[in-house]
């Protein structure tokens, strides 16, 4: 039974390949130039993370202040900033923008942590790479299987 559960989870994971999950990262200072962006694998879907003016409007997860502070730390800081940009969920606003928006974003479709969005995210996120409603069904099925297996072992 354990093997069946494990195989089910593995097969389900394989059924949703991550090949389409790629972000594009531009060289520092050139987020407005498309020629030299690198497509890199990330959890954020295949939407470019930095397309707007100065690379911090609707894409970069770090505030301008945080980016500047990281850049000042040299190569390692810059690498950290790039990694944050590359692996951020698509469309996540910068931290300072989130703070200034207060509660107004909680129920919006673009982000936030309201109950509707939590359910939406649980049902697969907002990008093309999500598993949709299959994820909660799969998790629920696995939990039920594990529960049944445990009960059966205790009863026998």
């Amino acid at each position, binding site marked *: 039974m354990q093997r069946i559960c494990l195989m089910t989870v593995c097969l389900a994971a394989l059924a949703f390949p991550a*090949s*389409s999950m*790629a972000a594009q*990262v*531009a*060289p*520092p*200072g*050139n*987020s*407005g*130039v498309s*020629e*030299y*962006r*690198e*497509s*890199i*694998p990330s959890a954020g879907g*295949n939407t470019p993370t930095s397309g707007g*003016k*100065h*690379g911090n409007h609707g894409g970069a997860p770090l505030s*301008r202040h945080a*980016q500047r502070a990281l*850049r*000042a730390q*040299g*190569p390692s800081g*810059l*690498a950290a900033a*790039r990694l944050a940009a590359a692996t951020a969920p698509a469309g996540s606003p910068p931290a300072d923008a989130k703070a200034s928006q207060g509660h107004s974003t909680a129920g919006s479709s673009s982000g936030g942590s309201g109950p509707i969005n939590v359910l939406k995210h649980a049902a697969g996120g907002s990008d093309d790479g999500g598993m949709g409603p299959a994820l909660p069904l799969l998790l629920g099925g696995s939990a039920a299987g594990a529960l049944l297996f445990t009960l059966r072992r205790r009863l026998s």
Partner: protein
Amino acid sequence: VTHPASRAGVFNARRTLALALLIAGSLLLPAPAAKASPFTTGFFDDGAYLSNDSGSWLDRTAAAGAGIVRIGVNWADVAPSTQPADPSNPAAGYDWTAIDRAVRGASARGIDVLLTVCFAPAWAEGPNRDPNAPAGTWRPDPNQLGLFAQALATRYSGSYFDPGLGVTLPRVRYYQAWNEPNLSTYLTPQWSSGAAASPFQYRSMLNAFYAVVKGIHADNLVLSAGTAPYGDPGMGRRMRPVLFMRTLLCLTVTGKKRTLQTTSCPNPAHLDAIAHHPYAIADPRHQAYDPDDAAVPDLWKLRQVLQVAQNNGRVLPAGPKRFWVTEFSWDSGPPDPSGVPVATQARWLEEAMYMFWNQGVDTAIWYLVKDAPPVPSYDASYQSGVFYSGGATKPAYTSFHFPFVADRLSKKRLRIWGRAPITGPISIQAIAGGKGHSKRRKRHAWQTVMRLQGQAGNVFLGTLRSKGAVKLRAVGPSGPSLVWSQR
């Protein structure tokens, strides 16, 4: 309990001991091998060199120690709007004004010129044009490109007298066929009927270009176009550079180990050197994620493809080929708010040069001698100059002029690498790194750990015994390099 003052004394004593060991160790080593090899550096900046103010920027370029400038020849701009009767005649209605000025200005200052031809006039584009293709990119006619190359290489053959100017124009030895042909920005279509198209189109263009340029002077050097570093997944607007180069050179990969195999090749590519543009999304040590993309540390991928092609007659003529980097750079802030700090830009410039050299590159061309204006924005323009737009130098000026890098070979050994700006003695100096030294002490603590003879434009190399953090610099007749901090 140890008194703080005595603790500091012990600390400084340790630092002094470490530096003494570094000096003693280096003195025990034999003199560095005289592995001097030419390493040419230069700039590509049409905004500066094709402007009316090109003279002042060429003066600064010469002062920076550049041996070459890359000049873009926009075929569509130079050529008349209708096809001339004899396109191979330099006097057939072409407008050479800006190119002449740049070539003559560079030549007068002893700087070599690389001419890069790109963008076809409408009358030289292929049939069935995609209306969305950028102007000048659609299947450029290889025969027409050859005729234009003949006009260009004749004009700059060194014996062409222009009656209008009343002068014989200087000779140009270096020619490059097209720019970044793995991007739709410069060559379309990239794909056709579900297969790669641009490498085949480009091979015909390159071979036509090669034949006429070499026909004018057999010792002219023809470079293939510099490839852009990254492609798109699937059949996007950008083809990955290693895939492009493989297909151009009639190779393919098979199996999990990606073994290179030859394919049929009725008309192999003709070239003297390949070129690449390894722009990086982070520091120079950042490797491209995809096996067919190529950032700074990945040039070996292209070198490997070239080597296999050479061994199997997939690139002609037979014999060794050179490898150039015809564009690389990082934007700095200031002035670009999203650029890297100017000190970081300077360090990455010289580190990238070392990494190029280490992978067989013999010529490296930095993109922009001066910052471009932020039009339409900083993020859509380049502020990668070694000069600010007003002419003041950045730290990158020094690292371009006198690049000096240390590379840890092991816990106890450091390789030092540099390029001598002028001929003369060079001292390698060291100071123990880390905290614990007052500013005053630091100023007076440089110790010479190696002496060698530099040759202008050549690489110098050495090995030092050194453990732990250390700061190094090279001092030559023209002054010191930037300080290299090594962990």
